[in-house]
């Protein structure tokens, strides 16, 4: 097992999840509340990474975030670094790929909160902002956590886009799933197996805990 790659994978998954929590939650809040007729367009855009092949995402990412693309050039001007083949590059690609894994569970959970509870809070004189944190978020919390866990687990397994965008550079963009790919190509099946089993167990345990907690909550209700 490549511990360098393991740490990198953790960092990538953690950062992706954190960013999508900070950015995805407001988007999900808006989607769950708005009555705008064009809402379905945003929802389709959010779901897009689910159906697009990672190669499509990787291709467009390299186009826009590469040295010839607008985003890439801006980034380079600001930091002196390139986006592709950097940690920030795969982080950005990972965030885009995982939008649906975060936003959709968030939105579902937020929409499931009884609107009359929110209105009751308003009538009791509590501001919209405080109402969100006192009423909506606690009640939507299991769904939000599910979204976070799915995002984390999915990022750990992300392969295609990370390879295309990251270039498989050790310590920077070589994540665990890529090390498995490398090991298989090098016919080091033993090491590939170790890593694969570890990932499998990790994912299963994480998902098991999440769904177990959800089940417990549902029964308590």
């Amino acid at each position, binding site marked *: 097992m490549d511990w360098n790659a393991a740490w990198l994978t953790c960092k990538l998954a953690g950062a992706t999840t954190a960013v999508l*929590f900070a950015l995805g939650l407001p988007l999900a809040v808006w989607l769950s509340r708005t009555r705008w007729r064009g809402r379905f367009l945003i929802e389709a855009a959010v779901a897009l990474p689910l159906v697009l092949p990672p190669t499509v995402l990787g291709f467009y990412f390299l186009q826009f975030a590469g*040295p010839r693309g607008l985003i890439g050039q801006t980034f380079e001007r600001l930091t002196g*670094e390139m986006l592709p*083949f950097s940690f*920030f590059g795969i982080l950005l690609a990972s965030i885009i790929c995982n939008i649906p894994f975060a936003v959709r569970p968030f939105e579902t959970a937020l929409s499931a909160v009884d609107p009359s509870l929110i209105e009751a809070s308003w009538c009791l004189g509590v501001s919209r902002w405080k109402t969100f944190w006192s009423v909506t978020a606690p009640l939507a919390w299991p769904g939000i956590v599910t979204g976070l866990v799915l995002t984390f687990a999915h990022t750990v397994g992300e392969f295609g886009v990370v390879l295309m965008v990251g270039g498989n550079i050790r*310590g920077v963009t070589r994540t665990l799933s890529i090390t498995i790919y490398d090991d298989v*190509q*090098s016919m080091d099946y033993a090491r590939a197996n170790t890593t694969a089993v570890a990932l499998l167990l990790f994912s299963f345990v994480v998902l098991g805990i999440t769904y177990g907690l959800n089940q417990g909550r549902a029964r308590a209700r």
Partner: protein
Amino acid sequence: MPRIEYSLLTTQLAKWSRCLTAIAMALAFVSAGCEAKQPADSTPKATERSVVRVAAASDLKFALGDVIAAFKKDAPTIHIEPTFGASGVLFEQLTNHAPFDVFLSADITYPRKLIEQQLAVADTEFLYAYGELVLWTSKFSGIDVEKLGIQAVTDPKVRKIAIANPKTAPYGRAAEAALKSLGVYDTIQDRLVEGGNIAETAQYVESGVADVGLIALSLAVAPAMRDKGVFWIVPADAFPRLEQGGVILSDAKDSAAAEKFRAFLISPAGRQILTNFGFNLPGA
């Protein structure tokens, strides 16, 4: 769980999780930021530990391991980080300024193109080996490639023939050319499977997914494959010569260290290792 505590627990959990994610986010950005900064301010002196990133063609997968180990004895402060891939794919990445220092290609035309585009340093181009192509099969396949030679591919027992992707891998192009010039291409064309690079191709045939495959000799003689199968060397005149060349890239962080590595590759010690892996050497 006592019912009374339930509502308190969920609010506690909520608070904790918010804290944890905030911390995680902060940590991730800080460490990522540190990562990003490192390469930029590394102008190492000869005595400091420096890193040379090598983009290497996949046929060097095992050979380069030995080279790096030997080089380490020579220059312990220089750390070599190889990334393997099909030469064509690596070339694409390098035209997009992928952060490598040295490019070892299975086809010297790629480094030449990089020099043309001023992405590589002109007078650092070097030819390090001539590649050999073999037809390999697992020893359990029951296909006698040694006796049948290229005709083995026409055997009805052969359901899948692995070659590397001709578009991106020089060994794939060579394999395709060989099959055509030896007159068997049309017969077996529908049985071809393409690996993304030559190492993946070798893995296909080693695992039995493909019955036979055209792979690099340097992979066939490597410990991982050596005792697992038999092979037939494809005659050199059946395909355009695989001129394997390298170059130092213009964006190289530590040109001095890169130059040292390049020098080692073409030194007698380096050449010996390459010979062990079946490469033919220029000037030999």
